[in-house]
């Protein structure tokens, strides 16, 4: 060992590693795989979930009385480790049998079939018999609008508790009870809807088993597709196309836009549109609202409504409603692209087709679970008929495609239908953290100064750091922008706003780390930031390849304003494209709450 490295031997391979390295890290660096269940390393969020609770990764360390958890035991000088001795294998198999003895053996009908860590490790260990049978826990499954909790499948790995408390600081999930009845649950065993959960779905994206899964609406979609009376419209979010391929063997970040559109047509969708169109619409509304607030500040120096905070992420909106209701006026009143699209489709497109709104079924394909909750909010329905009928997430679309036996890789590249298939580069980058504010600035700058933005790509706003900021010069007036992804980081910016010390004029918040490309409905990235970077780069590539790159240049958007909406933030726009929020912290419900 020379000064600052530690020499050790694992399975007769000698190596030297920096101090503080765990046996698991040292072994994997040397190509030795050790199975883990509760361990989860989120490199870029500098967080590691290794409570040492599952004990699957135990290894034999010479001179130690009992077996050592590889995920938590740091290497020491001269340590000799054996990872697959008979004693270790007997221990691992017995521990796995114990976990399986309190786990429902219904893999074939489980939503996580094929993607479950427990299934994989049990398979690798070759478990054929569970020798220790006995009482099994019986928890009532909890079906909230977006997330389904079946705690009989919980193996107490504490990943969701870490995600919900340490990364997202929402604090809806925690371990309760003690001993055999210990499980992760919400306060007082209430269902998710009764807790402070904001449906960001990060718990679902880290859960190794089927305990936490997205709510499935495939049946509703299939019913609508089969109904000849209904006209079924699809709108696909920008982040979906960067990840859908993953479930069909494509590399992370491969754009499969064309094949996705063809698959939707194969499934029987009458019209396949692009949510990016509504993203451009959102920029028009939100950009104008931002400029109005800026001009209000110029006029009378009144900063009550600044910084403006984006409202396209329902998880973030729900978080503000639950934890910081006093900041609701700072939220942009613009609806999210999903809801704007639904509203325009059911009001304008229905009229174009000359049909009644009830005959239209709008299905949104989102990278996110919270969108299921958003489209179910009462204020987004007109006399009982929701603007967006169903929202399905990326993995759910992949299931539908497999369900219909479509050979995804062999599909030709299809095109979005017009007019709502048309979108600009600004709409596309909505899917990644920093994308919304960059799109907004491209338009706001031009509307404010009358001149186009010199360098269109805000490299300074891009990247994966938790909190980022930048200043754009609007003809001498510095506009300061703040960006946060992950609700834990958002909370830090919000605390500044609350204390009146926030340096920003506009803040973009995405509830999920990485933004929508890391959403709760996306194919699992297990905290591997490399996957998220590839998806973000894919969006930026598609943006660069687009002829039109600023939202206000979108012809269909311009036509919509000419035909119907007249001007952004006008009376018509307010009715169709804006909304209001409710204080959920002090017992507010759907219908009561502060006026916008």
């Amino acid at each position, binding site marked *: 060992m020379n000064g600052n490295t530690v020499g050790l031997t694992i399975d007769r391979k000698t190596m030297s590693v920096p101090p503080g390295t765990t046996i698991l890290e040292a072994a994997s660096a040397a190509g030795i795989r050790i199975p883990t269940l509760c361990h989860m390393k989120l490199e870029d969020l500098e967080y590691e979930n290794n409570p*040492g609770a599952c004990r699957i990764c135990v290894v034999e360390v010479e001179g130690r009385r009992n077996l050592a958890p590889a995920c938590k035991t740091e290497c020491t000088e001269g340590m000799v480790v054996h990872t697959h001795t008979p004693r270790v294998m007997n*221990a691992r198999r017995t521990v796995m049998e114990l*976990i399986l003895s309190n786990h429902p053996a219904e893999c074939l009908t489980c939503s996580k079939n094929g993607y479950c860590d427990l299934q994989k490790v049990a398979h690798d260990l070759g478990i054929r018999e569970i020798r*220790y049978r*006995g009482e099994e826990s019986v928890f009532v499954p909890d079906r909230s609008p977006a997330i389904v909790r079946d705690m009989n499948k919980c193996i*107490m790995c504490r990943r969701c508790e870490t995600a919900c408390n340490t990364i997202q600081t929402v604090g809806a999930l925690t371990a309760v009870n*003690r*001993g*055999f*009845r210990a499980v992760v649950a919400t306060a007082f065993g209430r269902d998710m809807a009764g807790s402070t959960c904001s449906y960001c779905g990060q718990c679902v994206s880290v859960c190794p088993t089927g305990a936490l899964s997205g709510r499935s609406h495939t049946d509703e979609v299939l019913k609508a597709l089969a109904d000849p009376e209904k006209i079924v419209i699809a709108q696909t979010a920008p982040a979906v196309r960067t990840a859908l391929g993953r479930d069909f063997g494509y590399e992370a970040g491969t754009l499969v836009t064309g094949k996705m559109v063809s698959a939707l047509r194969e499934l029987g969708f009458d019209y396949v549109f692009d949510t990016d169109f509504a993203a451009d619409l959102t920029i028009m509304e939100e950009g104008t609202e931002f400029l109005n607030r800026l001009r209000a500040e110029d006029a009378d120096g009144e900063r009550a409504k600044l910084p403006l905070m984006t409202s396209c992420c329902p998880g973030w909106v729900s978080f503000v409603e639950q934890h910081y209701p006093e900041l609701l006026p700072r939220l942009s009143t613009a609806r999210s692209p999903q809801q704007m699209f639904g509203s325009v489709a059911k009001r304008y497109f229905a009229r174009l087709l000359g049909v009644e709104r009830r005959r239209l079924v709008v299905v949104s394909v989102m990278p996110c679970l919270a969108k299921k909750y958003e489209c179910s909010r009462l204020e987004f329905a007109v006399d009982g008929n929701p603007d967006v009928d169903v929202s399905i997430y990326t993995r759910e679309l992949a299931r539908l495609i497999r369900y219909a036996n479509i050979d995804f890789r062999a599909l030709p590249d299809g095109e979005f239908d017009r007019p709502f298939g048309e979108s600009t580069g600004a709409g596309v980058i909505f899917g990644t953290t920093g994308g919304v504010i960059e799109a907004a600035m491209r338009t706001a700058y031009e509307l404010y100064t009358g001149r186009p933005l010199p360098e269109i790509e805000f490299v300074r706003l891009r990247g994966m750091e938790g909190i980022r900021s930048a200043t754009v010069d609007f003809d001498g007036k510095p506009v300061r922008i703040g960006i946060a992804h992950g609700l834990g980081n958002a909370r830090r910016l919000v605390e500044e706003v609350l204390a009146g010390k926030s340096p920003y004029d506009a803040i973009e918040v995405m509830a999920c780390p990485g933004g929508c490309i890391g959403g709760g409905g996306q194919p699992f990235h297990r905290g591997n930031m490399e996957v998220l970077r590839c998806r973000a780069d894919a969006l930026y590539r598609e943006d660069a390849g687009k002829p039109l790159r600023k939202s206000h240049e979108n012809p269909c958007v311009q036509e919509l304003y000419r035909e119907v909406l007249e001007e952004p933030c006008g009376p018509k726009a307010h009715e169709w494209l804006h909304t209001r929020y409710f204080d959920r912290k002090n017992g507010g419900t759907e219908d009561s709450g502060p006026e916008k």
Partner: protein
Amino acid sequence: MTIGWQVLVCGGTGCRASQSERIEKALKEEIRRCGLEDEAQVIRTGCFGFCEKGPVVKVIPDNTFYVQVRPEDAEEIVSEHLLKGCRVRRLLYVDPETHLRVSDSKHIGFYRKQLRIALRNCGFIDPENIGEYIARDGYAALGKALTGMTPEEVIGEIERSGLRGRGGGGFPTGLKWKITRQAPGERKYVVCNADEGDPGAFMDRSILEGDPHSVLEAMAINGYCTGASKGLIYIRAEYPLAVERLKTAIGQAREAGLLGDDILGSGFSFDVEIRYGAGAFVCGEETALIRSMEGQRGEAMVKPPFPSERGYAGCPTNVNNVETYANIPVILLKGADWFAGIGTERSKGTKVFALAGKINNVGLIEVPMGTTLREVIFGIGGGIKNGKKFKAVQTGGPSGGCLTEKHLDIPIDYDNLLAAGSMMGSGGMIVMDEDDCMVSMAKFYLDFTVEESCGKCAPCRVGNKRLHELLQKITGGKGTEEDLERLRNLALVIRDTALCGLGQTSPNPVLSTLDNFRDEYLAHVREQRCYAHQCRDLTQYFISPEICRGCTLCARACPVNAISGERKHPHAIDPLLCVRCGSCLEKCKFGAVRVR
């Protein structure tokens, strides 16, 4: 006013439960009535240790030891003994072997072989009067350390004394203090572990109730050595009296300047706070205790890092047990060599044991390390109750094992007990006789562990549950020999893989009963018989027709009227109704009721 008499009344929890407070009041009234108030004093002391014979009253100056005193006896004690100097014979202790009444406690077998260091002041001083503690060299050790010794010298003294942790682990105390001292960090903590979760162990309680200042002084010395200025006592909620005595002691120590700032002019400041447990045996484990003190769920953490490096609030924390602390002042005053002269080669000093179970003298004893089990159980404990035959003694509580006839002559110390398949534990010693079934004893301990496991790691949360279920199967008469093998493998794996001390030692009761009483397990499995008649499902009560006179006494006594038959005719027990409570056996004068 020269005091001629002092009447010491035991104020321990046990005796107070038998109204020792009313005895005090009655004695004081009686003394006032006889006009002796200026000659005789009534003083409440801590526990004498002889709980079986409580409430205990000791009259000074003739050292008369009264046992099982009732409030009504006060009148006779004063009028006969104080007024006429004539002892009340019926209240004297009767030595079980010689059947002689012994008055001076020094001649009572229970006390003769004891060497009381940790319990030196218990039953001697009034715990709520700091003066009496000071009168017996109280705080002199602290004074000596603060003004005459450097921290290193004090630690050296403790190391040379060979003192090891009395909480159960037996980790060398001096070494622990040195590690905490050397651990970097300007804020450090000293913790006294008074959780004492072991059922059947109450030595910490007696020390805290009888001599709280010795713990406070030792904690201050510990603070001086390790560089901590704050001490925390984590005490379980089930000890209200100990908490009360501690609060009084802390108040008096602060008042006397022996706690707080600039103690004895040395510039060293140290204060102590009480932290409550809330009913969790696992919080006896260091890391779980620390999390509990931080207001969290008491879940153990993987070690290292050890609390000495990173513990309470992330600072170096030195955790020691109550009894360990009680030894410290004496070691400093009488010197390490004196202490090292007591005990065995690798276990120095004395150990306090709580004798309980089927033994004549239930109570608290303190014997030098190296005393044999035989001396403790038969010499001091007065042998087995009701003349029954000794079967086993369980040491170390739920983490310990049971020792049998062949272990009676091994000298008690940490290593010998470990070698014999048990462990020292906190000192709980449960004696069992021929009527105790070892399989159901193991089941009792597993039932305890399953209830008290924190549920964080799979081997303990699920493993101990399965062990308990296997034992239920065996005591229910449905066990197979293969179950015995599974019991052993599962127990060994749990011991090998559990995260903390509780889980790693919870299989010990099973493993040691399997080793020492294999025949009993086989009887339960092969013949479905429990020779100790404790496993209800394997016990059959029946009436032998030849002996039964039909006196119907048993029929009337049976709570579930499972016994039928007319007067003067042989009766019969319906095995399906019988709940095996044994009332019929007790009531039958002719021995007609039999157990099989």
